[in-house]
């Protein structure tokens, strides 16, 4: 490293060395690791501990329930040129964004103006300049040791409101970028460890709960100062020269791990997985006329692994931008991909290293994943929504690859969907409130190669899967939990099922002015199932909510009659069975802004999805089916009709499997499949005619194909070829 180089020149040199050697910083060897592996490893864990200490401090200093109760935050340490060295626990989806933000400061020559000084505070949340969406405020401070800039610390927290067109932070309803909320565009927001007063004034004038927003800003700052203080001690102990060298080696080490994992645990070739996501908004509550539309989004993944174990991702075929918040920039998408990669490929030392082990091909301009070249006004209110649905394919395709090499302990099926519950209105203290509960941060986890997924214990966008305490959430919002239950069969049907999602039943309580509920889209599928199956499993059920307005609950409580504590029968649920209401909507397609302002004793049923299952359901161990029957995680019609398990409930309410009847039932299912299945060619001959005629194709479907095919000509040619459509055919 040259002391004479500016950071900008150092960046160029880093890029040049990587291009020449294929190693980050040109590190063809790891001298510090080789010289003293014990110290190298010890300092790595010290740095991790520093970042995690920042997470603990920062979350506690913060104000919003998102940070304080949910821990939806992250702190990271970076090299002087921005590459991430290590991170705290928390929302790891942001690591790439934070690294690219620091790099961007340098590329924009901020080193000259405004300059980098001790105590400076910089921030960005603007998607046009590297942010993901406005509620995620990315903050960074340069760190100095004896007057030399030796590192950066960064932080992100998810504000409960950033001033978008509708209250809340899951801003799927934003029609364009002008409704995305208050931008902080690559700004210096403070110096000498203090925030500029105009920053606070702006938050006060343009966000709905500025006390929480500013509390979280101070939380980020507190975490950053924690890192700064402890890093000083670490450098003093181990020496600056060692820190600077080792911190680079950690990144190259991580790259090597990711490459090695691909080469030793996967197979070269081409992997494809389709994904789709619906936005059924026609006729619903929307902000602008252009949003009165039904949309199906195409989220295809093609992954290629070459002979050098270089991995490349393509989104050819992605559909166009949407007039909602579900657009994302390639920079933010790459950050999401790095997070997904850290989960399933390169997780030994999580930092920027894996970024150098893979390539995201730039998606076609004008797609939901690269909107600005064509639609500069596109909203990015919740770009994570399609992204996490796209990333579910990463889990599945790497799971398939690990299976091929025999690493069954590493296999994973696809992820769950993500629906957020947002509340805005008058709280129990008579104040205006807006915010999330953290229900969506605890999905069921995907099925594994050797067993079921874990129930309500996992979330794709944060390793910190924590839905918080119900009792604490009740302090933030005027709601009372009547139930928080595992949702039966919400992990799909398969040899191994995904972990169960959970369903929450809320009763509105103690709001004089009323409160609004939104089932917000941070990755919902409602018209279609979540994912496909994997290896013959059935997909998870779509996301739907229920609610009741102006209910008879108070009378039921007074009379000590049954209320509602779970969803119940999908055809005639507990809400319909037990509750009378002026408005009772049992099967509501989401996302949705519920049109009624809810009052005391109104009810909301808010389900959170399980993850994908794996394997033919008739191969599920009957004993596992029996256990699920006993614990209420599956229903008898599923056990019998889909798993082919015949079981009976005894007088003690316990289930017993009839082995002989189960064997007969399973053989009957196999025989029935062979009897009803038709040769693919026979089906194709009929189906291709229907495709040509656009028969029974919803407008959202034909719109999607038209968009995908116009933006990706090669994808269009392949699709036409498959269905034997004319060369000039368009949907």
């Amino acid at each position: 490293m040259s002391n004479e180089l500016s950071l900008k020149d150092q960046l160029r040199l880093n890029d040049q060395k990587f291009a020449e050697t294929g190693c980050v910083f040109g590190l063809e060897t790891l001298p510090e690791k080789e010289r003293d592996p014990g110290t190298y490893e010890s300092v790595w864990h010290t740095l991790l501990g520093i970042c995690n200490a920042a997470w603990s401090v920062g979350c506690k200093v913060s104000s919003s329930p998102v940070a304080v109760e949910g821990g939806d935050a992250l702190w990271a340490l970076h090299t002087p040129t921005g590459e991430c060295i290590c991170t705290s626990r928390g929302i790891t989806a942001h690591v790439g964004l934070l690294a690219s933000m620091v790099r961007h400061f340098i590329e924009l020559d901020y080193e000259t103006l405004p300059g980098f000084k001790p105590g400076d505070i910089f921030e960005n949340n603007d998607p046009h300049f590297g942010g993901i969406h406005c509620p995620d405020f990315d903050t960074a401070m340069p760190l100095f040791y004896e007057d030399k800039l030796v590192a950066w610390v960064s932080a992100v927290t998810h504000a409960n409101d950033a001033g978008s067109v509708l209250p809340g932070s899951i801003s799927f309803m934003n029609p364009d970028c002008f409704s995305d909320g208050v931008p902080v565009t690559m700004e210096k927001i403070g110096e000498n460890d203090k925030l500029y007063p105009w920053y606070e004034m702006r938050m006060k004038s343009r966000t709905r709960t500025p006390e929480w927003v500013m509390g979280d800003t101070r939380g980020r700052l507190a975490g950053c100062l924690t890192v700064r203080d402890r890093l000083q001690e670490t450098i003093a102990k181990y020496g600056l020269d060692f820190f600077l060298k080792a911190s680079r080696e950690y990144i190259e080490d991580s790259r090597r791990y990711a490459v090695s994992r691909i080469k030793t645990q996967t197979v070269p070739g081409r992997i494809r997985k389709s994904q789709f996501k619906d936005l059924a908004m026609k006729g619903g509550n929307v902000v602008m006329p252009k949003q009165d539309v039904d949309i199906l989004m195409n989220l295809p993944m093609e992954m290629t692994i070459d002979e050098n174990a270089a991995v490349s991702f393509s989104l050819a075929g992605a559909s166009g931008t949407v007039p909602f918040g579900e657009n994302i920039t390639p920079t933010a998408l790459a950050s999401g991909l790095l997070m997904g990669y850290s989960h399933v490929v390169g997780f030994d030392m999580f930092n920027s290293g894996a970024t150098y082990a893979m390539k995201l091909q730039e998606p076609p301009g004008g797609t939901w994943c690269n909107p600005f070249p064509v639609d500069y006004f596109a909203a990015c209110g919740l770009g994570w929504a399609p992204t996490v649905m796209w990333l579910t394919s990463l889990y599945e395709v790497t799971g398939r690859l690990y299976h091929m090499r025999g690493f069954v302990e590493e296999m994973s099926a696809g992820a769950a969907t993500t629906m957020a519950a947002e509340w805005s209105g008058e709280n129990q203290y008579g104040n205006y409130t807006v915010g999330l509960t953290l229900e969506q941060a605890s999905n069921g986890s995907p099925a594994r190669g050797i067993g079921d997924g874990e129930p309500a214990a996992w979330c794709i966008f944060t390793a910190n899967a924590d839905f918080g305490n119900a009792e604490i959430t009740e302090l933030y919002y005027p709601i009372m939990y009547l139930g928080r239950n595992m949702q039966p069969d919400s992990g799909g049907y398969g040899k191994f099922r995904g972990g169960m999602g959970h369903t929450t039943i809320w009763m509105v309580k103690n709001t004089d002015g009323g409160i609004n509920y939104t089932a917000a889209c941070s990755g919902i599928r409602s018209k279609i199932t979540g994912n496909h199956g994997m290896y013959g499993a059935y997909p998870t059920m779509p996301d739907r909510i229920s609610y009741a307005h102006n209910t008879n609950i108070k009378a039921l409580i007074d009379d000590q009659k049954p209320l509602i504590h779970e969803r119940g029968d999908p055809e005639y649920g507990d809400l319909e069975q037990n509750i009378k209401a002026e408005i009772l909507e049992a099967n509501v397609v989401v996302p949705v802004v519920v049109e009624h302002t809810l009052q005391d004793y109104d009810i909301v049923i808010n389900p959170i999805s399980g993850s994908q299952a794996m394997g033919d359901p008739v191969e599920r161990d009957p004993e596992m089916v029996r256990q699920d029957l006993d614990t209420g995680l599956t229903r008898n019609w599923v056990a019998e009709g889909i798993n082919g398990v015949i079981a009976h409930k005894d007088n003690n309410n316990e289930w017993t499997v009839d082995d002989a009847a189960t064997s007969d039932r399973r053989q009957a299912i196999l025989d029935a499949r062979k009897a009803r299945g038709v040769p693919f060619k026979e089906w194709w001959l009929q189906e291709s005619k229907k495709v040509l005629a656009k028969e029974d194709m919803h407008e959202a479907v034909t719109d999607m194909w038209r968009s995908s095919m116009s933006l990706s000509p090669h994808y269009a040619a392949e699709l036409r070829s498959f269905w034997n459509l004319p060369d000039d055919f368009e949907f």
Partner: protein
Amino acid sequence: MADYDIYELEEIRKLVDGELPWTTVQQMMKNAKDTDRFDKWITILQERVPWDEYILLPLTPALYIVQKDSDRIVKCRCGHEFGDYRVNWKLSALIYVRDDQEKLSEVYKGLEQPDLKWMQLREYYCPGCGSQLEVEALPRGAPPDFEFLPDLDTFYGKWLQRPLPQTVEFKDMTAEVIRSWCS
């Protein structure tokens, strides 16, 4: 053999069959991986199929790419053959599409049902044994996913350092089969 090639074949068999305690599996996940896992895996799988062709690559729990004479074909564990591995095997499977309410209600009920105007539920079965090999949830117009086209010659020749006797072109042949259906 490296120091971390610590697992006997029997341990891997137990792992595959879900017979190891979770704490042991967790440790296996944390440890460096055994470099000969693929060979153990093929040995275990080869013992379990009722046919003799050599397994080149397990595609799914039910389907394998095998060497059959000079061809590389996809074969079900039951013995049913699907043809050249470079053609999406789904073209040789049985398919059943749940595209009406009655068919859908066997799998999803009430508010758990997707909307069939937006998607089809396609089930692919093995013609030999009736195993449900994959289930796809797709809008009309979507070709079936060709999940994996492996570059077998690179894999065996450059990654495993034991080239296969003959090489074949790394090429998706699915379109050629479709074209043959149109003529």
